[in-house]
């Protein structure tokens, strides 16, 4: 028995020494190659496609989850197509500088990039200018939900596809509402009451606003009936042919915003110069502001509202039909004159495939544009998700409307913030409608 043990130990030592010797020989051995060229094939130039997108400021040592999810799908495309997607970015340093949308329009018009991440207004503009390629030819486009197609078709072309259906909502600090025994508001009146109570309790500006997203209040009140009624198409048709006026829809919303401004529930001056999330984020996270507005993904992103010390709830904007999520379509469009058009289309076909969107949705926990991909959202987003599941929402942009909604309303809201009256704002809508009609 003991003899066996000894024999085993000897065997193990011999094997061990043999392995070490082998490793040493392998390590010392040189890799003789036939080719005299010292540059490996991997170092050869790869194909490149250029993406232009907004730049999100990053914090030290923080990961941008939203970008990470996108990167994962891009990486998939890069690997499969053996190319590199170069990111080009721009963000205005301040409100006085040209906006991302302005720069995007310039760059698209001058064929500077292959593909773009486009806001709804630029989709409408570039689509109508014929600057964007028709993406309906992509295989992955067949899986898209109908609402996605509806919102992004210009002149019969599918000009943009989102990786997520962006739903805007009110981000509320549930703890603060509970503290003052306030139910979450359903209607504009309830919302105003809440603001009043907060203000009475020393919260001077209950709503944290920026220069981009106040328009969601307007859309919620303006189109709650239009999109949740039974005559949606007819009403849009009436708006497009001038039988009905956009200003009639928008007025209550603007009047509501005016009240918020007048009562000091929002700081109009600050909002006018604030970029999205940047200014209001700190106060909201510090629980100085109980209400902000943002898009769905902000609830999942640490750089936005993904990590709060309080109970976060995301609800719809107040309307006479109750809480109303506002859906907008930020999508990717391809420059019709792109230098690497085919490669770009191939990239898009991959990043919009069900496989890629599954990864994207799983990572970001957002509503997918593919009808084949479902989301498992966090608790805070459930109120908003429930509304979407019930088909209760309004569209913030609709390519079927001849007056671009998202960008124009945003600009007109800025007029209001800058001191224009509701009447002046309505007049601007009438002017835009008239301009569209004459076009």
């Amino acid at each position, binding site marked *: 028995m003991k003899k066996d043990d000894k024999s085993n130990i000897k065997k193990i030592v011999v094997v061990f020494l043999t392995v*070490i010797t082998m490793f040493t020989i392998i390590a010392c051995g040189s890799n003789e190659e036939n080719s005299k060229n010292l540059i490996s094939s991997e170092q050869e130039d790869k194909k490149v496609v250029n993406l232009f997108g907004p730049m999100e400021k990053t914090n030290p040592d923080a990961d*941008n989850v939203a970008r990470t999810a996108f990167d994962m799908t891009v990486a998939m495309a890069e690997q499969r197509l053996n190319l590199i997607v*170069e*990111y080009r970015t721009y963000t205005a340093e301040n409100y006085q500088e040209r906006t991302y949308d302005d720069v995007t329009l310039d760059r*698209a018009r001058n064929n500077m990039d292959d593909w773009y991440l486009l806001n709804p207004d630029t989709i409408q503009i570039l689509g109508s200018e014929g600057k964007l390629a028709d993406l309906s030819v992509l295989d992955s486009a067949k899986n898209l939900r109908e609402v996605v197609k509806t919102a992004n078709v210009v002149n019969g072309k599918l000009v943009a596809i989102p990786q997520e259906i962006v739903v805007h909502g009110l981000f509320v600090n549930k703890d603060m509402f509970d503290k003052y025994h306030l139910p979450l508001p359903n209607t504009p009146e309830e919302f105003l009451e809440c603001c009043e109570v907060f203000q009475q309790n020393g919260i001077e500006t209950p709503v944290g606003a920026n220069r981009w997203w106040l328009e969601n209040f307007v859309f919620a009140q303006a189109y709650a009936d239009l999109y949740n009624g039974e005559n949606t198409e007819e009403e849009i048709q009436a708006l497009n042919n001038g039988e009905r006026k956009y200003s009639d829809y928008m007025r209550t919303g603007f009047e509501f915003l005016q009240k918020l401004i007048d009562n000091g529930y929002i700081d109009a001056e600050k909002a006018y110069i604030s970029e999205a999330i940047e200014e209001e984020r700190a106060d909201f996270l510090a629980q100085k502001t109980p209400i902000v507005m943002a898009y769905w993904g902000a609830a999942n992103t640490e750089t936005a509202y993904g990590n709060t010390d309080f109970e976060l709830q995301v609800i719809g904007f107040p309307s006479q039909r109750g809480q109303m999520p506002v859906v907008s379509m930020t999508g990717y469009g391809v420059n019709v004159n792109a230098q690497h058009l085919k490669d770009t289309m191939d990239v898009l076909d991959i990043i919009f495939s069900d496989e890629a969107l599954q990864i994207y949705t799983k990572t970001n926990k957002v509503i997918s544009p593919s009808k084949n991909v479902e989301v498992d959202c966090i608790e805070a987003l459930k109120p908003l998700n429930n509304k979407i599941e019930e088909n209760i929402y309004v569209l913030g942009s609709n390519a079927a409307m001849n007056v671009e909604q998202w960008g124009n309303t945003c600009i007109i809201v800025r007029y209001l913030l800058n001191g224009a009256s509701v009447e002046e704002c309505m007049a601007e809508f009438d002017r835009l409608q008239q301009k569209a009609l004459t076009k």
Partner: protein
Amino acid sequence: MKKKQSKNKTNKGIALLLSIIIVFCILATVVFSVSRKISTEMSNSAIQNLSESLDLMKGTIEAILVKEAEFQKLIAQEIANIENPEGFVRSYHKNQTMVKLSIILSGKTEGISNTGELFSEAELNFSSGKTVDNLAISESYLNYMGTWAYTMKCPVEKEGKTIATLYAEYVYDSFDKSLPNGFYNGKAMLYIMDAENERLVLKPKGMGERSAGHLNLEDFFRANNILEESLRKEVFECVKNGKNILFYHDVRQKSALNYMWSVNDGYIYLIGYVPIEAIQQEGKTVNQNILIVVIVMLVAFFLCCMVYYFNQKQQNKIRKEREEEREIHNKRLAQALQAAQIASNSKTTFLSNMSHDIRTPMNAVLGFTTLLAKDAENPVKVREYTKKIMASGQHLLNLINDILDVSKIESGKVVLNIEEFTLKDLVSSIDAIIRPMARTKKQNFHLEVTAIKHEYLMGDKTRINQILINLLSNAVKYTQEGGDIWFRIIGLKQRSSQYEHIKIEVEDNGYGMTPEYLETIFDAFTRAENSTTNKVQGTGLGMAITKSIVELMGGTIEVFSEIDKGSLFRVELELRIPEEQADKQFWKNSGISRILAVECGEACKDIQTLMKDTRVTVDIVSSKQEILHNIQQYYNTQQQYNMILIDWNILDIDDIEMIKEIREMLTDSVPILFLIDYDKDNTKEVEQVLCIKNTNTLAKPFFVSALKEKIFEIQSEQKEEEVPETTKISTLKGLHFLAAEDNEINAEILAELLEIEEASCEIVENGQLAIERFMNAKENEFDAILMDVQMPVMNGYEAAIKIRALNREDAKNIIIIAMTANAFAEDEKEALEAGMNVHMAKPINIDVLKKIVKQYVKRKE
């Protein structure tokens, strides 16, 4: 001592450990130093490489800028020669580098651009005063294409007079193609920054972070956590002065080398960082290899240590085993020495005892012999002395026999003489010896035989006898007067049908033994008390002999004893049952097929058991009435009883009439036997009963053989009554012997003894002379030859063989009696094998001689 050794070992171990630790520390220090030196050298080399790379990029960008400026000057010269400079500008089509061309004629504030728009210098900021090849260069701005651009202005001179200013807009994107597609394996970050507004105007492909872009220098610092005021101040100072700066700072928790490289005298900067791990990849690889080598060395070292350790362990183990072995060996030697000493002591004691024991009877012999010589005339005293001399001689003989036995047993020369015997003979002989001894000491001797299934057994009867006599004589010796001695033979359950399993118990209520003595009771040369102080004589060899014999027979012996309470010896033996018991036809021939046994309790069951094999029916009745009834029932039928056995114990004086009645009921030929205890003193009653015709006694316990003997005796008596008595030789009178005996004294004693018996003898000195004498004798001159065994010239065995071989009629028939002091069974066997008729142990017992002579002479007749 051991503690000291252990302490020394521990100290040595600690010293060895410390040495190893020191060696390792030195090794670690050397490795660390080498590694650090390599790292530093690699770092310096890497910094140099980085600087060179950045210089290269700087040179490239500066070259582009100069070329752009030179080209612009050429255009300006061209325009100077054209009559319509604005028309020339309008007709310009942008290329990838120069995307806009504008001109303002001298004296005007606005001009035109090739894009068709009005152009004013107010849109541009030339306040920094930076130039390229003497052309002023504007602050970077976002142009109409949505990309970062700069403008250089060039005066259009004609004949030494400035007629206009030409503005050319260049985009930073054009640098991208001239810059490397990433460096440090794509791990280095690089941005081009306008020094004036600190905006990051270009992220060359493959060089920026994909997960986020950077807005301006402040954003770059914030994102990379470069927040130290002093550092930032230094950086801003360098930027302000157009100097390069290179500094270490962690980026995303990794040590990185940050750089800001001035281009075109600080008009623009190349800013970014490269992780140290990327810059020092070679150093890391070298360090990793050093580490691998160190690890391999350590593993090898530990392997050696392990091998050494196991070797030492093995050595220690072997050493320990040897030490243990040596210790065991020493222990054994010590034990052997002790045993030898004990044995020596025992033998010394034994010799001392023997000396005493031999001297005592010898003294008696010599003493009484002296007295005999003195009182030879006094017949009374002579008889008394000879009697005492005889007793002493007998004792001496026993002593010598025991010593010889022990000697034989110890040397393994004892051979069992297996033959058929009956328990009846065994018990009778024992009883005949022990009972008188017990009676002498007024002790009660109880004999019990129960549950024996077979009384004919195979075994060495002599040796069994020896065992029992030893045990019983000890019991008698060591039991006080009036004590009880029990002798039991109990049949046990047979383990094999071929063997009778018997248990023999010898119990007494005598002195008992101490537990200490019990432990050595079976050892040779021990005795309960030292013989010099003990009144009881003995060799101290009896128990050792007994145990050895029992074990030789495959049996066991055990002893239980308590001081003053008595002892119990228990012997278990398995004795073979003879395959064919002799004379099974005896019963048939004797005409006995049915026996009536009357009230003998357990003994009756034994009768039934023992008679089982004889095919004789044994009926048992318990009352006197039943006896008569049974006898009447079968009287005069074929099943009538052929014998009646009556337990003497149930009878009283009045029952004699009943016996007579029974006698009358039976035919005279049917014997009535009474089972009588040996020790019951009831001679008168028995005599009365025996007056009744054909009655007799049978000693308890019941044995078939005894019954057979009795039947034979009765039948013989009946025959004797019928046949007249023939002449019997009862003495040695008239017989003539030839005796071969070399010892003169023995020869004389023999001659005297025979003479006393009125027999004559001729004595020769050896076997050879005996043969010669016999050869010369007339036929049947000698009635028998008494042959000593050990003799000079020719021994007895040889002489016997040769006598038998003689060609004479009487040589075959002459009775040769071996006379030898060798009293063992083997001697007897050898004597018989040599053709002798019988073996007689010396000294010669005249009664034994008579018996033998009677037996053989009769046979001869």
